[in-house]
């Protein structure tokens, strides 16, 4: 029940987010490990920027 409620919030918020990175962050949110999931996704995004500009 809780997971469904959280998913509903995430979906509603996703619709309001225009930035692709913001959408990724909110979709990555995991109630069981909230901070870790968000920090991990941000880290991924930053490392992608580091490597993508080399191409």
């Amino acid at each position, binding site marked *: 029940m809780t997971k469904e*409620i959280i998913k509903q919030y995430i979906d509603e918020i996703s619709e*309001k987010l225009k930035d692709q990175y*913001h959408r990724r962050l909110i979709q990555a*949110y995991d109630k069981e490990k*909230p901070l870790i999931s968000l*920090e991990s996704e941000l880290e991924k*995004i*930053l*490392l992608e920027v*580091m490597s993508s500009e080399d191409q």
Partner: protein
Amino acid sequence: MKINNLTVQGFRGFNDKKSMNFHDKLTIILAPNSYGKTSISEAFEWLLYGKTSRVEKADSKEEFKGSYRNIHFPEKSVPFVEITFLKNDNSEVKYCSKLNNSETIKRFVDDKEVKSWPLDYDLSKIPKPFILQHALKYLLLVKPDERFQSFALILGLEELNLFHKDIVSFCTKTDTCIPTDVKTLISNIDNIECRVQRVKSLENIAKEFKKESLNFNNINSAIINECGKVVGSGIANNQIFQKLKEIRENKISKYFKGNLQILEYSKEELKENLEEEKFFFSCISQDTIKKYTDLIALSTFQFILEKAAFFDMGVNFLEKDKKECPFCGQDIDENIVEHIKSNHRNLLKEKKKTEDLQNQKNEVLGIYEKLKSRLNKYNDRQIEKSKAFLNLDLNILEKLKDIFYPDNEKYYKTIKGIYKKNNELVKNIVNSKGDVIDSIETIKKSIEESKEDSKLIKDLGENISAYLSNINLYIKFVMSKNLDSVEADKILQGKLDEKAGTEDISVLIDLVGQLKNIKKKIKILAILNSLKQFRKIIDQYVTSKVLEIISGELTSEVMKWYSQIKTDGDPDVHFSGFDIERTKKGELKARRVQIKARSYDKELVSAVSSLSESKLNALGLCVSIAINFKGDSPFDFLIIDDPIQSWDSEHETQFIEIIRNLIEKGKQVILLSHNAQWIGMVRKGCRTINGRFYEITGYTKKGPELLESPWISWKARLQEVDAILKDNRASIVRLQQAEEEIRLAICDITSDIFYNKKKIIKNPGNFNSTIVRKLLIECGVNSNLIDRIYQTFETTDESHHPSISYTTQRQRIKKYHGWCHELAQYLEK
């Protein structure tokens, strides 16, 4: 579910076991302060939730450790709280919680142990059926964030609240999740930016870097423009970097050429070194030694090769003439022919072996050739690291001294130290490498001359070990001096730029070389900065969700109750609804629930700052009540502990109406208070409910002394009837009330008569006509009177409610009133 009975022992203020029965509509408990009244509401709370709100909200839980257990209760006994609930289907269920020594709780339902209460609800998500003294404090008079959390909890938005807190926490502290590589990149670009700021001729670039919103294209254009001024027009963008370096090198070369950096080893290079060293040692492995020493046999096989060639020829001649020996010409027979052929075959086998060995010889030679080649390359790679220092000599060092001194003497000393040590280590490497090469050549020669000697491989092994030992020392030196040398080189380059006037070119070289990283940094910062917007959107979302509920449904519900407390004489300063605070731009402020108030049509700053304490209390009560009617709950009861704090008498009276409304809406109300006068008013105002009334008359080590008293004294009831009868304009409802009062008085009087006669307490609340009749007979009351008394019950049901078709009559009531007084005379006998 409603509450039928509470039994407590050893819990909080209760030492001895005490039991209380509850009325299905209204039970009042009156007790002076400190008589254990709150222990009763805490008993309910603790049973249902395993803890009390006072402990839950305490700043220091340590202070409350062991506080559930009554201090006088025997150590070996087990404190418990037991409640018998009445379910909707009128069946009973008994919940019991026992407190173990370790402060853990064992739960039982109808005497069977359970892990949790068998309710189809998550108790943490439904409103608690308690309105406690400190409830207001935790709801209204707290910091904005705590208030928001409390409201979220009671509105069933706890998940949303926690989700929001997670996002806020994340957005506030993103530093911890920035990878080291990213931090290093940002730091490096920051350093370059600082240098840009210091060079006046590059102010156009500096301006671009200073802008709040960095634009890479603008920065890039500014850099290219400045580069163009230095390198001239006509230079393609991809050649600018090289051209800048040339120009700078040209200008500084009169002072110094090159740099002073010892290059660091990358992880890949160190790994490659290990692979090479593995190969080196494989060249002196047992396997290789065997292949080498096998070659000794080659010298003895040379003769065999020649002999085999000789016999090849002989066998060929034999094919032509089998009767004549090909070697001496004599006649031969078949046996000798066979002998010759047999020798030939054996020789061919031996020849094959020799050829294999020959291949092996080439292989071994190849190994040592490869060893030499790879050793040279390996060696060059290592020495390359300190090439800058190998190019120095004493003359150049003197020049460097002039450049570094006097301000940077320590860097010069560092350079000199590195130079000396580097020379020493490289010399050792060169010498030991020479020994290895010599060994390799000796081994190769021994193979060529077929003078193989295993000792030579041993020597090679020792020389390789010595060489690699020198290499290891060198590598450690390089790794320890890399940073020092880089730092010293930085100072040197800066000094050279000063002398040659090439500071701007130096900065441009770094900028052009780092363009890709500048772009990355800008993008990374944009992402990190955008998290403010990310948080804002979520703030607005969460706040809107809360606003939707509190400004609509909740405000309306609370208003309904609040308006019942208002009196005509109240100044027009009142609660006017819930909202979310807004910024000057009208945007919602996150997590700031506002409690509004108005004064004569003007909006006040807030209710908390403007309303009196009594009004705030009333508001807190109304919020708690409204919440309790919101949504589903298994509980049909409400426990209200000391609700009227700082209220005047008019508002106290208004609250009695609230109690009646709660009961009318189906709630079982359990009301606790220390205010005897007010409780008297409640009983009077709720007279017809005829609930249960307890007084705590004392408190000892054994706990509170509970006494159940009549709801209203029969005398008071009859006085009320009297007043109604004297009122000629009394309505039918009032007359019906009078009749009901008579019946209730009769039950009370009967109970008292029975007690006087038999010293047995009977609860008049359970009496019906049959029971009254029976008890009066047992007490020897006149049978005629008993019949008349019985008659008063004829028009009511078991709960004393009159039938629908019944019409009350003043004359009949007068009669009943008289009979009642007649029965009361038995109390004086």
